[in-house]
């Protein structure tokens, strides 16, 4: 059912839109232009190095695109020529990044539209998030772009980061916030602070991005447009969303249901109690009002993996973008310590939200493991190789598990001991390469654990600093696999 695509699994019988549907999606065509500008003007460029108008210009310079700046008082900023108005900038401009104070945004937006700039990002804040006056300004902006064919991102946004093109409109420099590498995860976010935290996470854990897009106040471009776009985007293999509100929840669910057949979608939906139900005269109405359970159920049916914290987002992204899904969820645990085994068994067997189970390992396989190892163990799952275990003991055990049919996936749990070394990375990698079963590593601990974990991450092997996080991440692989299976094979 699945085929390898780099280090990532996609459904073979993907339900990509039919050619006719593709022609129909004006949205995708327009966003493709939006994300592929060749010339950009920064309106509100600043000479002050700490100001957003300066940082953005410096960040964008790295793209090597035709770059212009608008500042009526400067001739040149950071080596970019300045013009006093956007009307003075020569030639075709694909994109404008507006970063002037909010009270000047409307006039600059008008100029951009008159100048026929089709793609606009308004970084400036001070709009609907700031009160009634800002809300009115947003209405005005909406009227200005209406029927002009303009695509607008923001206001009140970090803008976008396209690592492969080095297009970067963040008002934070790379020294303060290193950017993640180019990759295949698209991240759409309604919050700046969470986005920045995730960028840092992604950088630290070797998660590569195809794109980051900050939704801001969603004046024009919203999550549904972006979801449709990244659903079709070939560079993107996994989509993350941080949302506080749905622009159109029903459309969102419909889009997810289609996209999830091709690639995983992870959603962190915050603001759980802020949702209304029109009236609540009925019993059903009272039970539903503000109920987060509705969101839970709707997302689940659409195949979305729901995250509840920023940590979940990171954990699930690594698992889902680096490992294939599981259908039945029988896992084997291999550890070099009894405590790790016992805690994991408890978690798997007694957590209501964990559907994984410990795979039954047959007597023949058990005997095989025992006979191949030079240490006395019972080989019952979870398999405790004891503190004496070496890399080779793990290798031997994994080679048997690779061929054990009841084992659909493996969780390797390591205590940093003399016996295990960096060679474990290659061993785990080879296991995955050879049998294609998902494998997840847990290295609980502090600095020494983190040091080893980084080696796994470098090879795109999901690794977790706690047993619990590793087990929940593995469980997400099962959730996804079960959904795919249900959608495909459901019969009355």
């Amino acid at each position, binding site marked *: 059912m699945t085929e390898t695509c780099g280090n990532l699994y996609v459904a073979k019988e993907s339900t990509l839109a039919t050619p006719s549907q593709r022609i129909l999606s004006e949205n995708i065509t327009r966003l493709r232009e939006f994300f592929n500008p060749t010339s950009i003007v920064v309106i509100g460029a600043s000479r002050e190095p700490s100001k957003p108008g300066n940082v953005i210009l410096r960040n964008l310079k790295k793209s090597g695109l035709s770059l212009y700046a608008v500042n009526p008082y400067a001739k040149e900023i950071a080596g970019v020529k300045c013009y006093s108005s956007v009307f003075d900038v020569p030639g075709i401009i694909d994109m404008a990044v507006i970063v002037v104070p909010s009270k000047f945004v409307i006039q600059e937006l008008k100029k951009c539209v008159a100048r026929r700039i089709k793609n606009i990002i308004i970084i400036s804040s001070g709009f609907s998030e700031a009160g009634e006056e800002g809300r009115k300004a947003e209405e005005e902006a909406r009227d200005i772009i209406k029927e002009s064919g303009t695509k607008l991102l923001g206001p009140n946004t970090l803008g976008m980061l396209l690592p492969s093109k080095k297009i970067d409109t963040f008002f934070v420099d790379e020294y303060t916030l290193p950017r993640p590498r180019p990759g295949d995860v698209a991240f759409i976010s309604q919050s700046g602070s969470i986005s920045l935290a995730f960028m840092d996470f992604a950088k630290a854990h070797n998660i590569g991005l195809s794109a980051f897009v900050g939704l801001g106040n969603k004046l024009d471009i919203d999550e549904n447009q972006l979801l449709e776009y990244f659903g079709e985007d070939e560079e993107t293999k996994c989509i993350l969303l941080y949302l506080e*509100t*749905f622009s*159109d*929840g*029903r459309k969102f*669910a419909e889009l997810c249901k289609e996209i999830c057949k091709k690639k995983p979608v992870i959603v962190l939906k915050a603001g759980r109690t802020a*949702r*209304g*139900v*029109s*009236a*609540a*005269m*009925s*019993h*059903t*109405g009272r*039970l*539903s009002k503000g*109920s987060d*359970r*509705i*969101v839970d*159920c*709707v997302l*689940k*049916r659409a195949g979305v993996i729901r995250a509840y914290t920023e940590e979940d987002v990171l954990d699930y992204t690594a698992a889902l973008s680096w490992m294939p899904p599981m259908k039945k969820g029988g896992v084997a645990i291999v550890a070099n310590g009894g405590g790790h085994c016992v805690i994991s068994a408890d978690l798997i067997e007694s957590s209501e939200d964990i559907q994984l189970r410990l795979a039954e390992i047959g007597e023949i396989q058990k005997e095989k493991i025992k006979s191949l190892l030079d240490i006395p163990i019972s080989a019952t799952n979870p398999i405790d190789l004891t503190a004496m275990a070496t890399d080779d003991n793990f290798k031997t055990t994994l080679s048997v598990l690779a061929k054990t049919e009841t084992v659909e996936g493996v969780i390797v749990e390591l205590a940093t001991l003399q016996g295990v070394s960096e060679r474990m990375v290659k061993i785990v990698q080879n296991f995955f390469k050879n049998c294609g079963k998902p494998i997840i590593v847990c290295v609980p601990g502090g600095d020494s654990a983190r040091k080893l974990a980084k080696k796994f991450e470098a090879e795109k092997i999901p690794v977790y600093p706690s047993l619990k996080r590793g087990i929940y991440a593995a469980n997400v692989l099962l959730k996804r696999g079960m959904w795919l299976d*249900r*959608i495909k094979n*459901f019969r*009355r």
Partner: protein
Amino acid sequence: MQNKEKITQLIRSARDSDRRELTEYESKQILSLWGIPIVRTELARNVSEAVQVARKLGYPVVMKIASPEILHKSEAKGVKVGLNSESEVRQAFEQIISNATMYKKDAEIWGVTVQERIPPAREVIIGLVQDGAFGPTVMFGLGGIWVEVLKDVSFSLAPVSELDAWEMIHEIRGYPVLEGMRGEKMADLKALVDILQKIGLLAIEFKNIGEIDLNPVFAFEAGKGARVADARIILRSNGL
């Protein structure tokens, strides 16, 4: 098609008399026209009709006040259960009407509904709500404390696919109750799936329906179906 028109008529007549909340009798008529099995319920406008209906349905019967102005029937002492004979039916009719008049002096009273009493079954609740973000959404839960105390419910957007409906039923915590405990047989899940799907379609077809409570729905043993025992349909506040 004819049934659709009849449903539209029922909704319109409530609208025309400025009522958002349909009576149990009207709600059940709509459900029945839409192919959802209900506990047999008929309207008796006077004592002799009540006796006739009771004889037709077979004893014992349940009788409830039928008035567009009395929606909390128990509160108005407008429900009598386990009526075993003609004389009990006569007595109940008079009592229900006089209780209703006491409860609300000038209430418009259509009569009394007479329902067949049905064998014991597991009780579930099926409902519909208009969610602010998702629009028409169908709810499923087990009756009694499961829903009252534990809020053990699940949802799906309308229309509800067959798979959605199966998932809704399976993902409530109280699911083992439907599976059967202490030697009990499995409840008729297929029949519940069917009702869930039909409620979803009803909301899609009749956009002016705002909320629905089917509470309780009796789920019999597998193969024996399920039937709606009490129902409320509430129209949206913003016109037809």
